[in-house]
């Protein structure tokens, strides 16, 4: 954490300064199929998305789908995954907007920490990375995701979904900006 001097207190009082700000958050009080962060300000350098999420009853563990600017054309994305399932390490790649994990019907919730770098730069394809994990005392996954969105548009909205399932109550989704 940086230590700065506020302009209004230039007599020298030290006050904590931070380059990490909360933009918006949602904690579900009832199930939902889609979570959208829209009108994301362009005032940050990077974004971090921190989620704790699980599916509704009967669903299996599955990838978290993360799309940008309402673009759900799978061929505009490419994802790579490295994961451990408690027995073996595996890899996976696909043309789809996958960037995390959603827990199944157990009591645990999957945790995802997702970084989306330089999200306003209009000269770059956008790359996201995720550290994800879910453990249910006898089953689970842990690993890394990376995903590229092959568009140079600034990201102004992020949509989180699953294939068809519903995010379970108490799932939470928080978006942060890093200056």
């Amino acid at each position: 954490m940086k230590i700065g001097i506020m302009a209004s207190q230039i007599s020298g009082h030290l006050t904590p300064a931070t380059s990490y700000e909360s933009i918006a958050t949602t904690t579900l009080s009832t199930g939902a199929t889609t979570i959208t962060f829209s009108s994301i300000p362009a005032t940050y350098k990077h974004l971090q998305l921190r989620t704790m999420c699980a599916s509704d009853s009967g669903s299996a563990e599955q990838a978290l789908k993360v799309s940008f600017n309402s673009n759900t054309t799978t061929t505009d994305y490419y994802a790579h995954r490295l994961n451990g399932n408690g027995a073996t390490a595996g890899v996976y790649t696909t043309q789809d907007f996958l960037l995390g994990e959603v827990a199944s019907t157990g009591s645990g919730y999957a945790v995802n920490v997702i970084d989306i770098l330089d999200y306003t730069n209009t000269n770059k394809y956008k790359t996201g990375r995720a550290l994800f994990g879910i453990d249910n005392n006898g089953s689970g996954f842990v690993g890394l995701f990376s995903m590229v969105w092959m568009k140079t548009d600034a990201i102004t909205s992020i949509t989180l979904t699953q294939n068809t399932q519903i995010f379970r109550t108490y799932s939470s989704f928080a978006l942060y900006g890093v200056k």
Partner: protein
Amino acid sequence: MTAGATYTSIASTTLSSTASSVTFSSISGAYTDLVLVISARAASGNYHTLKINSDSGSNYSRTWIYGDGTSASSGRQSNASFIYLVTEVIPSAASTFDTVITNINNYSNATTYKTIMSRGNNSADQTGATVALWRSTSAITTLLIATDAGGNYQIGSTFSLYGIAAA
């Protein structure tokens, strides 16, 4: 959308003498997530462990993946009485410290079990990730980080706890 500065230092310690454990207690419930950052060196053959709220029951489990430069492996442990934060051995060589960053999301809610996710890096051993579950709905107020074999953390080891508050 609202915005507010966060990612706040809650507490930090740098060891000026050796110690076999470090405890963060009376953790405020004012944040949404915790981030624990460890840079440590210890007596030979020790691993990082974590206990939450002094719970020594068989309420922990974990799944891990690591690569050691030769191959990648995964495994799991169920019904454990503590968490191995990561799979790497803590370095013991002079001037050599590992880096372990642990995320504990929604640590203060009293409704869900708690998921703890760590990334470990010991350049002399391996790199990997571990996800763990603490099967309790209690809010987390205490974190006890200790070596598994009773060996001491060495002088210069740092342990820092941060809080992130969602809007």
